């Protein structure tokens, strides 16, 4: 029998959930039979644990641009059992090409579908953790769709079960979580479709009406019959760049809530919002209050066209302020090939800064927020410029892997044009690169935050050269540090288990609504620190490239923490509450209305 959502809240909503013990580390992560966790660096790859997804890109030698860009995945708790499951977005053949034309045959049975893996995490009394994933694609009722790209996760119908929005080259899919382990495709009924080439998407309640709205980023106006042939300087055929096709506007879908027929539907408010007049080439989107006025804004990473910063005005309207704000193009005034994007307070000054990834021979870019929505390109001085020059980068995520209170950055790399050196060596898929990990050194002597490239210490999995695309972060084993789901194009998805975060103290938070038992995406959380500025984090699932992240907030406390901490939450509806004595080294659920109201 399906447990009604409100019953679950009674059980889990009280205060403490996910009762992780304070002592938990990679050593305590027991390998299930056939699994292996090597402790060889900051991250160790979890192998043989059942997550056997291999991305199929549909490559047939015709160089369809989409085949080289794809690879998305999500971390979400679809069965509300307290641990993160994994959803992997799958490709397919393009147009009417037969599967036997595939250069690299699919590893999964036909017809190809996205795949869902249930996390069957077991925590023994001594804190030992056993991670095991079970492929539940068939029982979840996932059906084949158009060629998949990205994913957003959020409980759009406020029933306490996280739903999914999968972006595709063709009709997208809104998958309603039925709460019984299955999903139903309600795209048409919910009026949430977009049949163009969509890549990023994000759920957020921008109009503060208590229902999650949806931003859908569209990439290029592509059709198989207008597929273009592009070539290298030697005349060899290669993948086209974004200039080969025109851009298309994104779509903002407002959640209309539950209608009289009990159905939850969306309305397209892109025109009203003022977003339709700017066609773009979106590959990434992130939601945050960039100018500190209390309203959610959108930042859109565009491929070779200026990025957009949609600042929310009154009446549901938005204005693209990126150019004036210094966040549309790089410091030299050039629009770059932005792919993934993430927002986070990497310098601990209380506002969300932006990091976006770019093509080889461009640097990735870090835009530093001044707190009022004005930005400065701080790529070079933070040390993130030079190491990115020779990579084509995609998924990127701010997360504090070592729980020292400073946000780090992981970057997934993989080329889109043939790499000469690899082609010369006869490589069958000459696009692969290694991924990168950057450690945040905190405030330097000059008062500026800088990064160091710690890829060499990051673990053997960082030595692999693959065509990586999506990075989704989340605490897979509930041990209080962020792990990573890495999705490769034309390759296996990988789970990177954090081996160092648990050495420090942390506080984990799940933020639930007052009347609705869902994760309150967009909530800003402050850790109140005596004698120091608060440390700010955001409950989010958006960011990175084609990914959905753990919606819980995990704050690293460093070595100094000794006991319970004080937390303040700025909820999406504008209300503010505070909790004293929130336990550390465990996850705590903070339900809106259960804290002390702060004027």
């Amino acid at each position, binding site marked *: 029998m399906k447990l009604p959502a409100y019953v679950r809240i009674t059980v889990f909503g009280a205060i403490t959930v996910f009762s992780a013990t304070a002592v938990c580390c990679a050593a305590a992560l027991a390998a299930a039979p056939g699994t292996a966790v090597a402790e060889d660096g900051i991250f160790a790859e979890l192998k043989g644990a059942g997550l056997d997804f291999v991305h199929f890109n549909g490559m047939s030698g015709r160089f369809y641009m989409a085949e080289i860009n794809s690879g998305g995945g999500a971390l979400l708790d679809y069965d509300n059992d307290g641990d993160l499951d994994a959803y992997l977005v799958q490709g397919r053949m393009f147009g009417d090409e037969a599967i036997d034309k595939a250069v690299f045959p699919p590893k999964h049975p036909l017809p190809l579908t996205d795949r869902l893996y249930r996390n069957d995490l077991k925590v023994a009394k001594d804190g030992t953790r056993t991670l095991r994933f079970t492929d539940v694609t068939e029982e979840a009722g996932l059906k084949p769709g158009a060629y998949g790209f990205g994913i957003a996760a959020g409980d759009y119908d406020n029933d306490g079960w996280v739903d999914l929005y999968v972006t595709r080259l063709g009709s997208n899919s809104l998958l309603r979580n039925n709460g019984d382990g299955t999903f139903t495709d309600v795209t048409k009924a919910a009026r949430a479709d977009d049949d163009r080439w969509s890549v990023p998407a994000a759920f957020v309640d921008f109009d503060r009406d208590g229902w999650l709205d949806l931003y859908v980023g569209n990439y290029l106006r592509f059709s198989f019959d207008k597929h273009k042939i592009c070539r290298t*300087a030697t005349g*060899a055929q290669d993948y086209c760049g974004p200039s080969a096709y025109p851009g298309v506007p994104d779509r903002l879908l407002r959640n209309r809530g539950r209608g009289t027929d009990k159905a939850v539907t969306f309305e397209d408010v892109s025109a009203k919002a003022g977003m339709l007049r700017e066609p773009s080439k979106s590959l990434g989107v992130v939601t945050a209050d960039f100018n500190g006025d209390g309203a959610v804004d959108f930042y859109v990473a565009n491929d070779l066209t200026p990025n957009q910063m949609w600042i929310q005005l009154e009446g549901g309207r938005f204005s693209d302020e990126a150019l004036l704000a210094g966040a549309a193009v790089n410091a030299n005034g050039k629009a770059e090939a932005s792919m993934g994007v993430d927002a986070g307070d990497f310098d601990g000054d209380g506002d969300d800064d932006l990091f976006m990834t770019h093509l080889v021979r461009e640097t990735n870019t870090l835009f530093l927020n001044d707190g009022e929505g004005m930005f400065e390109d701080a790529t070079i001085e933070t040390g993130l410029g030079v190491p990115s020059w020779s990579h084509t980068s995609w998924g990127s995520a701010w997360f504090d892997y070592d729980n020292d209170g400073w946000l780090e950055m992981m970057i997934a790399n993989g080329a889109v044009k043939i790499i000469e050196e690899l082609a010369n060596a006869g490589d069958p898929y000459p696009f692969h690169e290694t991924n990168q990990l950057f450690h945040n050194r905190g405030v330097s002597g000059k008062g500026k935050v800088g990064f160091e490239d710690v890829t060499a210490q990051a673990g053997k999995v960082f030595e692999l050269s693959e065509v990586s695309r999506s990075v989704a972060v989340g605490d897979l084993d509930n041990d209080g540090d962020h792990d990573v789901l890495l999705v490769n194009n034309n390759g296996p998805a990988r789970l990177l288990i954090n081996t160092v975060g648990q050495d420090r103290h942390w506080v984990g938070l799940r933020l639930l609504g007052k009347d609705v038992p869902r994760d309150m995406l967009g909530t800003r959380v402050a850790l109140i620190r005596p004698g120091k500025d608060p440390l700010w984090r955001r409950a989010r699932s958006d960011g990175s490239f084609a990914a959905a992240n753990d919606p819980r907030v995990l704050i690293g406390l460093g070595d100094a923490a000794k006991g319970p901490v004080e937390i303040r939450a700025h909820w999406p509806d504008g209300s503010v509450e505070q909790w004293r004595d929130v336990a550390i080294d465990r996850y705590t659920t903070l339900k809106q209305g259960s804290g002390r109201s702060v004027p």
Partner: protein
Amino acid sequence: MTRFASTLFSTLLIFLTVAVPVAATREMPEGVAARQLTVPKPDLSAMEESARAKIESTQSSLEDLARRDDVDDTELSEAFGHLGRLMHAYRLFDSAEECYLTSQSLAPGDYRWTYYLGVIRNVKGDLEAATVDYRRALTEKPEDPTTLIRLGDALLELGRGDEARQSFQRARAVDPDNAAVYYGLGRAAGFADNFERAVPMFEKVLELQPDATVIHYLLGQAYRKLGDMEKARVHLGQRGQDDVKVHDPLGDQVARLALGTAFEIVMSLARSADDYPDEEFLGFALSHFGDVRGSIDQLKQSLTLQQEADASSKEQSRIHYVLGGLLVNDGRDAEAIEQFERALELAPDLADARVKLGNALARQGKLEEAIAAYDRVTELQPRNTTVALKRVSALMELGRDTEARQNLEMLAVLEPESSEVHVRLATILEKSGDAAGAIERYGKAAELQLSLVEQPQVHFRLASLLRQQDDNEKAIDHYRLALEADPEFVPALGGVASLLAQLGHMQEAASFFGALSELQPNQLQTRLAEATTLILSGQHAAAKTRLEAALKRFPGDMRVMDVLARHLAAAPDHAVRDGQRAIVLARRLFDEVPSAESAETLAMAYAEAGDFTQAVKWQKQLVDELVTESDPALAQRLRVNLSLYERGEPCCAE
């Protein structure tokens, strides 16, 4: 799979080709250890044939040269440098780097090879190595401004602002009129947060190179950081993508080589393709030659060479054809026509050239000739719908609608799945007044797969025709479908809003007028229609907000003032009433337009403000002057309101 893709993948998959450096042992002078000179051999399998042939032949010559004893190091370094530049032009950077390294080792004092190495390493992202190369090149040619600028750029990327500034300053001392120097100095100043210093540097760039529009962005940001938002906005508004040019003679050699190699590839593709994939190689030409004019010049030179060499008519026809395409891209239709005609003289069955000829003739207004060209294509390709439609367009432009219609009807039978044919036929039927026929054809088109451009148009036309036929429900459906395809399609928004208002669905109408107002904020009629429908649907507060917004945009407009004043004086929702503001507006209105209507508005306003003496006075005057037997309704209204005011009640309370 295309031939090229096939070549690439078969090669990649079966690992046929692996880069195998070929070493040529060379006898070295006494006392110098024998060196192995390696000629790089990248994988050429996927390359276009002319490119592969060119590289292979250069490699082969170099190997021969390296084996000879009578060749000195200088000559060899030149030969390796030549191959390096060729690889560089083909963007085979690893191979180019190897060649330049060999050249450098053979001629250590020749700054060119060190400079090229710096450029290659810069491109590959090894900026530290690039700065070492640039510095070494500067020891060989100390005051070379280009190298100093490249060094400054690399140092800036490395975050070494002070060193970068020094390098740019050295360059300025040598070449004070070089825009790239000031671009570098400005960025170095900005890097040090010295925007007062950065601004004059960027201004200097614009003075030296006014078309470097990218500088406006840097200026805009510098002014923003200095707090001058006005200047920031002005410059950001002028921002463009045109870069600051760097005078780079060595770089130009590679660029010219790249131009030549790209040209050869284009021509080779043109020769080898049976079906003249013009878009493909025209696009390639444009992207690699850099600009249309450069491409045209290259082709003209090539044509002369081909003619001198007495090349086959087929070869020449293809060059004329490509040249024609480029001229079309450059907007030079008259010259393009000439080239297409020459191509067709040499190869009369070249259908694509004939289509392009027809198109160019049509654009030049030579419609009869265009039709003749299209007819000839149709003889060669009877099922070419695109050409048939172009012919129809030409016929319609000539006013030969009947003939066009007959052509389209025939096409509709032959190509029943072509939405474009149905749409064109519908258009011509609509033009001729056959609404029913047009509806049928648009309907057929709507059932087919419509393009994103066609969808809103087809549904809008259907809606308009159905509305004319009083089939309003269906018309609304199609307006909605048009808006689903394009929510900002103004004609459909206007159409559905007015029809809904006409049918009394004021709330919905107001919402569409609202969307229209957002899209066309300067259209007063739309704003008034929105306010009116809001009032009629009982949304009085919203109406007030929208009218206030309209008045803000059109401050002196009497119509807005009148509607707003009346709304403030007499809205059924008393919460939105504001007598004092209504008086101000009505007074101003009456002063500007002293009419009976404005007097009535003034009376309403006074009554709402509680000044019933004034209200009665103005209303009584109206009753005395306007009440006649000819307009009993007006008389009734004026009297009723007068009695309200006399009783001390505001206007129109019901």
